[in-house]
C-alpha cells in the first residue's frame, strides 16, 4: 500500500523540518530536528509536536490524530532529505515512550525491504547493536545511508 507524505518545510542547514498533520483532531504542527553530537557524523533525530500557543516543542504529547502512518512516512522522507546533504550521517532515534519506540519499530519493519535498499539499519538491545530484524523489540535505532 502506498503511503502519502505531508509537505515539509526545512531550515537552511536541513537540520530542522516542520510539517502539518491533518487528522481527526485537526491540524497539528510536527517538528523534526537532527542534532549533531560529540562524535563526528553522529546525529540524534528528535520528533514532536509544536504547541501553537507557545511555539514550544513537546515530544511527550500523544496526539492520536489518526494519521500516524502518514506522519511516520513524512519523518522518513526527512531522513532521505537530510542524508542527501549529510551522506555520512549516522542517525540515532528512539521514542520518548516505549509505545512510541514500538511504533517506530513497526514503521521500520513494515518498510524494511525498501529502507534496506538505501540504509544500513541497526537496533539497540541490552546495550548492544544488532542488525535490525523485523518484529524484534529494540530500545533505539541507528540508520546509516549506503554509498550507492
Amino acid at each position, binding site marked *: *500500500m*502506498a*503511503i*502519502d*507524505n*505531508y*509537505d*515539509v*518545510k*526545512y*531550515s*537552511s*542547514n536541513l*537540520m*530542522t*523540518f*516542520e*510539517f502539518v498533520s491533518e487528522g481527526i483532531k485537526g491540524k497539528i504542527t510536527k*517538528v523534526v*530536528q537532527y*542534532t549533531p*553530537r*560529540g*562524535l563526528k557524523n*553522529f546525529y*540524534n*533525530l*528528535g*520528533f*514532536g509536536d509544536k504547541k501553537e500557543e507557545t511555539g514550544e*516543542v513537546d*515530544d511527550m504529547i500523544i496526539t492520536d490524530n489518526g494519521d500516524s502512518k502518514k506522519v511516520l512516512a*513524512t519523518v522518513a*522522507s526527512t531522513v532521505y*532529505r537530510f542524508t542527501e546533504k549529510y551522506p555520512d550521517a*549516522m542517525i*540515532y532515534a*528512539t521514542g*520518548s515512550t516505549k509505545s512510541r519506540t514500538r511504533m517506530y519499530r513497526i514503521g521500520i519493519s513494515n518498510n524494511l525491504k525498501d529502507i534496506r535498499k538505501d540504509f*544500513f539499519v*541497526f537496533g*539497540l538491545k541490552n*546495550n*548492544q*547493536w544488532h*542488525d535490525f530484524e523485523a518484529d524484534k523489540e529494540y530500545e*533505539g535505532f*541507528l540508520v*546509516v545511508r549506503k*554509498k550507492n
Partner: protein
Amino acid sequence: MEAKENTKKKKGTFKYSKKLDKYREKILFPKKVEKADEVLRKVGLPKQLFKSS
C-alpha cells in the same frame, strides 16, 4: 465500471523556510539528545558498520 484504487504515493514537497533557522542553535529535544549521548558513551557504534563500509 469499477473505480481503480489509486495506489500511487503522493510525495510531499520540500520548501525552504527562513523561520526554521531560528532553531539553528537551539536543541529542541534535550532529553532525546541526552539519551543519544548516553548510548554513544556506553555502547558506541555498531561494529557491523565498520565491516559494512
